[in-house]
């Protein structure tokens, strides 16, 4: 502890980090209030809704789905959290300087490296990355130093465990990653000790128990706070939903794999792992602080790369990659070119200064920064104004709707949550169909419409898919069916359709807008294959009846001609006889003179694809199937299934 105290004591040597702290505070405070948002971006809406909700006493996890942490949610509405929030960037960069100083043992190099990194963050990756992942980038490096430098007592492990628990509750997934990294570093330290002192190695289960006990104690304060706010159950449930979100948010990874930033990360990672492996496996040197840092950064980057597999965060990952490169350079400098180090300092100094001159000074407007510092609400209002300037069409829709009924409640489909802000309306638990895709999510959305007597639905015509190319009619068919059955066409405003509550009308008759025609042509991709692969075994003679089976559409149409075959609980089983095409196409003639066509990835020969017709938008109302056309390489079966079995399918 004495060593720690001596490190923290303020003396003349600490003047430089103090100046650095003040400089980074001034340079980054302008970005605190959301200047990081690209106001034309779709995602900016979500941030504005959360800011609006936070300022209007909507509690996260309990009243609204919020995928981030408390600090990010409450920073505009709570003065104490706001003070902490604006200090995140300067604290983290000063800590980083301190770590570099321990590594380089050279203040000039440390300050230049820190400033160069800050310049990179400000200009290239975006300062938002620091508020989003900064804790995860820097705190494990601090733990690396603590574990490298000290042989900790049980009491110290307990305190560290408690801190880990507290920060896990405060920073959620970032906190969990930090905890995982601390444990990884702890076992890394033990593994190195085992390698050196094979005979004298003592396993330390007690230390792990002290960490775990401290961790549980650290969870308590926020758990009690949540319990008092009646949000503890919702908070626990949030983690279950987070698992679903990762499933929904998955987008194709290998498309972004070949981006320049990702290739840079990928190569740096391989070099670092290789370097560390060789150093630890083949070179019997004394373990250095840099080994702990490299190990910690490798795990950080591997975790972030896996996160990037779900949603690309390539630019943000480059921040720990650059820290890793700085650590590697320091290691090479100390190991191989120590004699030339003095000559290198001026060059690095000049390069660093070049970076510093590249600073974007827009965010350092002291007038704006001061205003934000005094009145956090100004941030939200400024963000909203900027967003509306970049997206004027939203205000047009609002004005039009207010001319009908100034107090009417609205729902946005598939999800332009900014409308809830503009109508000053409490948003549904899930803002977009993207978040509400689970059956519970969709039910919550329908309940919201019923409970609030939503009079108008605003449909974004251009937004046929949200974020990942999975169509909305696939993702949220339950909500879509509710809308199609209970609302009718009212008016077009730019790219938006306004639907008014009307339970009697049929939205497909007449078709008032090309948007509805899109709903009649459906590409189900792999869904029929997946449904057939996993669930065709559920269909048997006791719960389903085969109406007709044939590989000729003529025979099927003769059957349909003489009968009334309703779409309710009607399944189409498509068995591939010969696989001659990648995509299977089926055209259907439906009662009320409607036509619809389905395409999907054809199953392999001998396999069965399954389609639940009542899930298709055109069959949101029960309709009569009149005609069906398909290629004779498939054998089609029309099957009536009982409701219980039908619910097992998509």
């Amino acid at each position: 502890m004495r060593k720690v105290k001596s490190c923290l004591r303020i003396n003349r040597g600490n003047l430089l980090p103090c100046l650095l702290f003040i400089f980074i505070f001034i340079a980054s405070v302008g970005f605190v209030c959301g200047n990081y948002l690209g106001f034309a971006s779709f995602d900016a809406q979500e941030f504005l809704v959360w800011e609006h909700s936070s300022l209007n006493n909507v509690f996260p996890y309990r009243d609204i789905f919020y995928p981030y942490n408390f600090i990010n949610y409450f920073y505009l509405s709570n003065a104490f959290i706001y003070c902490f929030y604006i200090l995140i960037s300067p604290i983290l960069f000063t800590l980083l300087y301190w770590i570099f100083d321990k590594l380089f043992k050279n203040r000039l190099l440390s300050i230049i490296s820190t400033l160069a990194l800050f310049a990179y963050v400000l200009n290239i990756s975006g300062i938002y990355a620091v508020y989003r992942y900064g804790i995860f980038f820097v705190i494990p490096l601090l733990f690396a130093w603590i574990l490298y430098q000290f042989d900790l007592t049980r009491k110290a492990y307990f305190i560290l465990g408690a801190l880990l628990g507290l920060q896990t509750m405060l920073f959620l997934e970032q906190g969990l990653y930090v905890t995982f990294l601390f444990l990884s570093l702890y076992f890394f330290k033990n593994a190195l000790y085992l390698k050196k002192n094979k005979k004298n190695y003592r396993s330390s289960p007690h230390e792990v128990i002290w960490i775990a006990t401290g961790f549980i104690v650290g969870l308590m304060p926020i758990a009690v706070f949540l319990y008092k706010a009646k949000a503890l159950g919702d908070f626990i449930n949030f983690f279950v939903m987070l698992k679903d979100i990762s499933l929904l948010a998955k987008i194709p990874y290998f498309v972004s794999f070949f981006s320049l930033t990702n290739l840079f990360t990928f190569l740096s990672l391989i070099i670092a792992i290789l370097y560390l492996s060789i150093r630890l496996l083949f070179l019997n040197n004394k373990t250095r602080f840099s080994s702990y840092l490299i190990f910690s950064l490798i795990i950080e980057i591997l975790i972030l790369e896996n996160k990037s597999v779900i949603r690309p965060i390539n630019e943000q990952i480059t921040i720990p990659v650059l820290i890793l490169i700085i650590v590697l350079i320091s290691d090479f400098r100390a190991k191989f070119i120590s004699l030339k180090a003095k000559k290198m300092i001026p060059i690095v100094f000049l390069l660093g200064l070049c970076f510093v001159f590249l600073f974007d000074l827009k965010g350092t407007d002291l007038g704006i920064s001061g205003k934000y510092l005094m009145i956090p609400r100004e941030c939200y209002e400024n963000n909203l104004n900027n967003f509306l300037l970049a997206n004027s069409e939203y205000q047009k829709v609002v004005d039009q709707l207010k001319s009908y009924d100034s107090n009417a409640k609205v729902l946005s489909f598939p999800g332009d949550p900014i409308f809830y802000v503009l109508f000053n309306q409490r948003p549904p638990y899930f803002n977009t169909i993207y978040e509400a895709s689970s059956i519970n999510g969709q039910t919550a959305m329908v309940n919201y419409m019923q409970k609030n007597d939503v009079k108008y639905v605003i449909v974004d015509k251009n937004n046929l898919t949200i974020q990942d190319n999975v169509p909305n009619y696939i993702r949220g068919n339950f909500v879509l069916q509710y809308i199609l059955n209970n609302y009718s066409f009212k008016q077009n405003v730019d790219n938006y359709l306004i639907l008014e509550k009307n339970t009697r009308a049929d939205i497909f008759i007449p078709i008032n807008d090309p948007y509805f025609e899109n709903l009649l042509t459906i590409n189900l991709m792999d869904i029929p294959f997946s449904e057939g692969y996993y669930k065709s075994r559920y269909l048997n003679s006791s719960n389903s009846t085969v109406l007709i089976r044939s590989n000729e559409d003529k025979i099927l149409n003769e059957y349909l001609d003489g009968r009334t075959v309703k779409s309710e609980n009607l399944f189409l089983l498509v068995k591939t006889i010969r696989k001659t095409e990648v995509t299977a196409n089926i055209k259907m003639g439906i009662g009320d003179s409607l036509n619809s066509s389905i395409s999907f990835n054809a199953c392999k020969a001998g396999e069965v694809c399954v389609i639940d017709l009542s899930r298709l938008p055109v069959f949101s109302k029960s309709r009569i199937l009149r005609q069906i056309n398909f290629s004779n390489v498939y054998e089609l079966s029309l099957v009536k299934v009982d409701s219980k079995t039908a619910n097992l399918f998509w």
Partner: protein
Amino acid sequence: MIYLKSMFLKLKKPIFIKKVQAVVVINFLLSSIYIEIFLLLSLRWWRELFPPSEIGNSKIVGYSQYFGYPFYFDSVYLMILIFVPIFILVTVVYLFNKWER
């Protein structure tokens, strides 16, 4: 005989390896590049070897269900891409160390 001196390996003295050994090393190094290229080019083929992603009772349909490959496939594939060259290069270093002795 080929003269080798490596700063990175920090050899105590320069070592001489036979041509056959050099060929082995070069082939090892090249094979890591070939394997990476093969893995990247055969991505789609590997994907299709696996069954499609299941759509659960809660009807969650995301990218992996719609486009039909396992959710964790990309993560596992990425790890293989990262660790294959490392494994090969560590083997090469091991061979150098062995020859040095």
